[in-house]
């Protein structure tokens, strides 16, 4: 495998312009969304088959260092998890890991079973009714294989979205957190940068100015497939009980000896 590529989204630099969202739609030829009145700047709330980058607008009372309301912005995207629930769940092999460490859905193989949709801890994978397949951010698979960065990172005017080698980006992100903390952002933290942390680390990781749950992110997402061993053991136990039950039920009961 080549050196792992990553995207680092520094939410402290995001100005909410949605250039990333538009660039993503243009490059990937994704359609428009029906506007959604939520009472905030948040215009439609979920990833869909037409939205792979989604800017989140979050109001956090008392979130600023001086106690004022913090207006948090975050350009959200598929995390390209090192241990990816969607990839593990895929029964066809349509979802695979590229040599750059990103997670990609092969649209020519996916048969639309939707298991990956249910297995994503972040609600990223979406079902496309038109093609009948699962869809999500591809890390601009075509672009990175031709020496270009992802369209969103290219379009970002403030370098809130940075693209590069993962190890370099993590080092840069750690420096940035320290700098923000000295500026008074005491809740500044990295999300998914630690490759020993949850899901083996995220190849699209974030710098957040508050707790992950404020952004609607799970504090410590769990790999769904971790449950398989325990659930299977209990199933085997149940099978043994049913088997023994059947032996008891049919032993010497019913029928006549012929």
């Amino acid at each position: 495998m080549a050196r792992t590529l990553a995207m680092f989204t520094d939410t402290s630099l995001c100005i909410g312009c949605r250039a990333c969202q538009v660039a993503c739609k243009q490059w990937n030829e994704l359609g428009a969304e029906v506007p959604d009145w939520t009472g905030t700047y948040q215009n439609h709330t979920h990833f869909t088959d037409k939205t792979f980058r989604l800017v989140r607008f979050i109001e956090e009372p008392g979130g600023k260092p001086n106690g004022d309301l913090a207006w948090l912005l975050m350009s959200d995207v598929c995390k390209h998890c090192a241990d990816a629930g969607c990839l593990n769940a895929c029964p066809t092999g349509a979802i695979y890991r590229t040599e750059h460490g990103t997670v990609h859905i092969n649209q020519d193989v996916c048969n639309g079973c939707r298991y990956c949709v249910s297995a994503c801890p972040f609600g990223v994978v979406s079902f496309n009714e038109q093609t009948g397949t699962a869809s999500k951010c591809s890390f601009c698979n075509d672009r990175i294989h031709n020496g270009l960065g992802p369209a969103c990172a290219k379009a970002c005017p403030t370098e809130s979205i940075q693209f590069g080698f993962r190890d370099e980006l993590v080092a840069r992100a750690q420096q940035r957190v320290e700098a923000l903390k000295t500026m008074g952002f005491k809740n500044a933290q990295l999300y998914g940068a630690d490759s020993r942390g949850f899901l083996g680390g995220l190849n699209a990781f974030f710098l957040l100015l508050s707790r992950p749950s404020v952004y609607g992110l799970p504090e410590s997402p769990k790999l769904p497939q971790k449950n398989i061993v325990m659930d299977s053991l209990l199933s085997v136990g149940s099978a043994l009980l049913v088997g023994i039950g059947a032996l008891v039920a049919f032993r010497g009961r019913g029928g006549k000896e012929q």
Partner: protein
Amino acid sequence: MGLLQSPHWPFLIDVYFFLGGLAGGAFVIATVASILNARRHREVVRVGYYVALAALIPCPLILIVDLGVPSRFLNMLMRFNVDSPMSMGAWALLGFSVCAFLAALFTLLEDLGRARDLARVKLVVGVIGAGFGFFLAAYPGVLLGATARPLWIESRSLGALFLAVGASTGAATIALILIAMGRRAADQVAGVRAMTVLALIIQIAALAVFVGSVQSSGSAASTSALRLLTDGRFAAVFWGGAIAVGSVLPLVLGLVALKKRSFGLTALTSLLVLIGGFLVKYVIMAAGQV
């Protein structure tokens, strides 16, 4: 956790989970009965293998129709992915289909008097098929447990529960058919009558573990998903349908029927078990996908 997406598996998938479990359960029961005494339990074995095939036939069709791209259904068999219960389930369905077809075919040949000592090969098919049958009944529960859906991810016993429901509904179906066959099979009802009761006990225990494991998970999203079942909009179906009328009442009636050897009561019990078994799977699917 409000940002999770639902797979929106339709009602038909609930039907598949029900039929697949029923087929696996009926097959396992037929095999155990034939191992113990194939002649003595002749009608149980016959009916069990026929029921298994009949319940199985719609299953692959349902799964194919539900796909986003049905013409690519064979892609399910391009990969053997032990991390994906759906992949393992697709393989188990294939293996079980072969065994269920052969077992029913051998039974038919015996019925037609064309069989020349098929007993041994039928037993081999029965034992292998019973392994697949267990798997087919249980894997949908393990599949649900290996998702990020809050109701399912913290539950530990869905596989065990679905397997028990497969056994209870399989036994109940065989019992109903034996009763409908009248005098010819009347002396064979006792075994499946007892089987239904034992499977119901496992089913109720697994339901309790399901509720308990989600409740004690400490995950706010999961416990609030569970409240949809316990006192939300699915509460009536869950408590009234799946548990009271579908599990506890047939257990009580089944115990009485066991004592009184009543056919009428056994038929009523079996009917309730079938309704209850379906509701258990339906309500867990529906509440898990909200």
